[in-house]
């Protein structure tokens, strides 16, 4: 994997800083790096060509030449140009006024349509309070119907299925009628994966489209797609005129350049990003965040949002009160730990912090097992011990170590670290900033 483009640009243009000005040839050096990085991020080469031309023009504008810290300036210009290329601001899925509103899913095999359909159903239900039906029109892939039934139920949506005997068009029509009589707000139609060059299957998709007259046709695109994304999207755009894109599997380490290419070539907005196996791993798409991802600049907004979603406000108030009164116990620590872990692996959280994304710290393997052990130790304590760890004597330590499958040494360490943490928090509440470095060293 390449280092972050942002870092690379800073390094490339570092010597310019001493001169204090950015010259045309500096920009060309930077553009070479940009071109390479974008190609490695799977941005389509034609898009890269026009993009670098655009950046060149912007960079040659008076606002950069003669600026201090030109590296920063160029990174900023690239980030802005990327954001613009992806549509500027986040766009919403519009569902019109007719009920049920119909959303048709389309895409290649294995792009993640069925999972995305269920995730979208869940999102519309949980966030917008809509009642959602799912139509099982993938009658081709073995067991696709069963899969949709299973994930649809998890999502709290009604799944309309007729097995695989009826064709996709007929099933779609029937499901629409059922959704209508059940007074659903939305019907999401799952379809078979198909190659954009498969005339027969593309015709079927067109027929389904005609039969259900969707408000929105969504193309599901794998974030790991390479240069071919443009050919795929153009063919789907031409034949079924999709309205927006769902980028799937964004939790991998793909930079997602394919998404950017598709926006540039078809001019359809990217509406959602799908990450991970769990049904709630589905978010509205934010172009500026994607730009930062491609640049390797971290994604602090997503992190903030994650924290906001996962952390219960009343819990937070209660926690603050406890901190102020110095009543923070191991139980509270455990619930904090669980809360943080709900947001994802520590590694993925670290990756979202700007400046860390390309950094060694973010690449460092965070030992999730260590956290498991800490949890196990606390869970092996009695409520009394969790409130007052100072009562934990030798024989209690042995019991806890045995109960948690760890060692007395590990129990000792945790209790010691917890004591230090309490001290740190008292300091924070009192408004003093403690020496974190010294504390970390002590804790080892």
């Amino acid at each position: 994997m390449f280092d972050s483009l942002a870092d690379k640009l800073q390094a490339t243009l570092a010597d310019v800083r001493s001169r204090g000005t950015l010259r045309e040839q500096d920009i060309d050096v930077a553009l070479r790096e940009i071109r390479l990085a974008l190609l490695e991020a799977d941005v389509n080469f034609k898009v890269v060509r026009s993009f670098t031309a655009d950046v060149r023009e912007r960079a040659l504008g008076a606002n950069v030449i003669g600026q201090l810290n030109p590296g920063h300036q160029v990174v900023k210009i690239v980030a802005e140009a990327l954001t613009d290329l992806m549509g500027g601001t986040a766009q919403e899925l519009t569902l019109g006024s007719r009920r049920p509103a119909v959303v048709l899913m389309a895409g290649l095999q294995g792009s993640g349509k069925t999972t995305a359909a269920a995730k979208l159903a869940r999102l519309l239900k949980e966030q917008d309070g809509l009642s959602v039906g799912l139509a099982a029109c993938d009658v081709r892939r073995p067991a696709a119907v069963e899969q949709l039934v299973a994930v649809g139920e998890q999502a709290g949506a009604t799944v309309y299925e007729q097995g695989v005997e009826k064709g996709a068009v007929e099933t779609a029509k029937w499901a629409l009628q059922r959704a209508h009589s059940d007074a659903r707000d939305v019907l999401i139609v799952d379809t078979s994966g198909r190659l954009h060059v498969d005339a027969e299957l593309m015709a079927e998709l067109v027929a389904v489209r005609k039969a259900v007259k969707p408000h929105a046709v969504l193309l599901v695109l794998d974030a790991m797609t390479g240069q071919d994304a443009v050919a795929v999207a153009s063919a789907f755009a031409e034949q079924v005129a999709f309205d927006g894109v769902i980028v799937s599997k964004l939790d991998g380490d793909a930079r997602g350049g394919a998404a950017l290419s598709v926006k540039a070539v078809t001019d359809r907005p990217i509406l959602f990003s799908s990450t991970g196996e769990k049904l709630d791993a589905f978010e509205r798409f934010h172009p500026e965040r994607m730009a930062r991802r491609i640049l390797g600049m971290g994604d602090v907004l997503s992190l903030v949002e994650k924290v906001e979603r996962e952390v219960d406000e009343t819990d937070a108030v209660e926690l603050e009160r406890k901190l102020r009164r110095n009543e923070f116990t191991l139980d509270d620590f455990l619930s904090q730990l669980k809360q943080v872990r709900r947001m994802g692996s520590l590694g993925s959280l670290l990756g979202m912090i700007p400046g860390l994304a390309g950094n060694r710290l973010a690449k460092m393997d965070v030992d999730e097992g260590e956290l498991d052990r800490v949890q196990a130790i606390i869970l092996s304590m009695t409520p009394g011990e969790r409130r007052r760890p100072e009562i934990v004597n030798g024989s209690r330590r042995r019991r806890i170590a045995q109960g948690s499958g760890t060692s007395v040494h590990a129990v000792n360490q945790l209790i010691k670290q917890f004591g230090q943490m309490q001290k740190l928090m008292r300091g924070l509440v009192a408004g003093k900033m403690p020496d974190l470095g010294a504390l970390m060293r002590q804790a080892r």
Partner: protein
Amino acid sequence: MARDWDDLFIRDLPPADPDAAHGAGGGEAASAANAAVSAPADSRRVFRRLRENLTRTRQALGAEIQATLFERLDEHTWERLEEALIAADVGAPTTAAVVERLEREAAGGELEGGEQLTARLAELLAELAHTDAPDTIDLRSRPAVILVCGVNGTGKTTTIGKLAWRLGRELGLRVVVAAGDTFRAAAVEQLERWTQRADVELVKGARGSDPGAVAFDAIGAARARGADVVVVDTAGRLHTQDHLMAELAKVRRVIAKQIPGAPHETLLTIDATTGHNGVRQAKLFSQATPVSGIVLTKLDGTAKGGVALPIASELGIPVKLIGVGEALEDLRPFDAAEFARALVS
């Protein structure tokens, strides 16, 4: 390079002496004869299919290169060539290396005109696809264990279905398939349909059960029935998820404990539409469980699967099989020369 199934699979039939197979018992000789008769027809049919499928693939790329065919080899040529390779997902570093080499050879007077260039290009690409690792699949163990892994949606289950059919129905081997994807909804049902079509045995566990246990049971069942091959399916997983990679490593350990030296083949499915990320996939999967071969799937679209080249040249993992469609016979042994020609013709 493997061109046909007999080149791909190493089997016990002819021990050391190639004549031994002919001298074997009547039944075996008859089936060998049958294979000999049906093989050319079969390969003609499949190659026509592959050609047809690849024709669509070629159009875009073909236009790029054809245009340069009879021109002088100048700056413009190299630029176009570079773009054509990039468009095929060959990746920037590999592309740069190939183009640089051709440029040097042209400057040295070794290449004249577009035709020589195209031929030499195909040669270089085929060379890149070639690795020091064996490009065959050894089936001589009883049972031989084939572990199949890959990212979600790359075509593991479909590949296993086709492979089981090839091994069981076409080559007459006793095959046991292990339904190791105990995670995804309806994954076992999907595999069940495929194994029914292929008419081979399926060993499954409960949804959410330990995939290692399913592999264990399948190997036990294969031994009890004297099966020839065990094909182990696994759940799709992103290579960045450490705990899932650890799970995969465990499945491998369970298999290795059962049969020393197993799995005899570990196949990683890579979607031909995958871009640069394919190299990362191959690298990280290899760290969890040494991958001995790539299955390049969905080559029947417009994607060229060029990512196979950096995987072969950087990681030394050869492509062994390609998927070119959804029918049972649409799994083929990989042929580097053919692949290289398809990339550039």
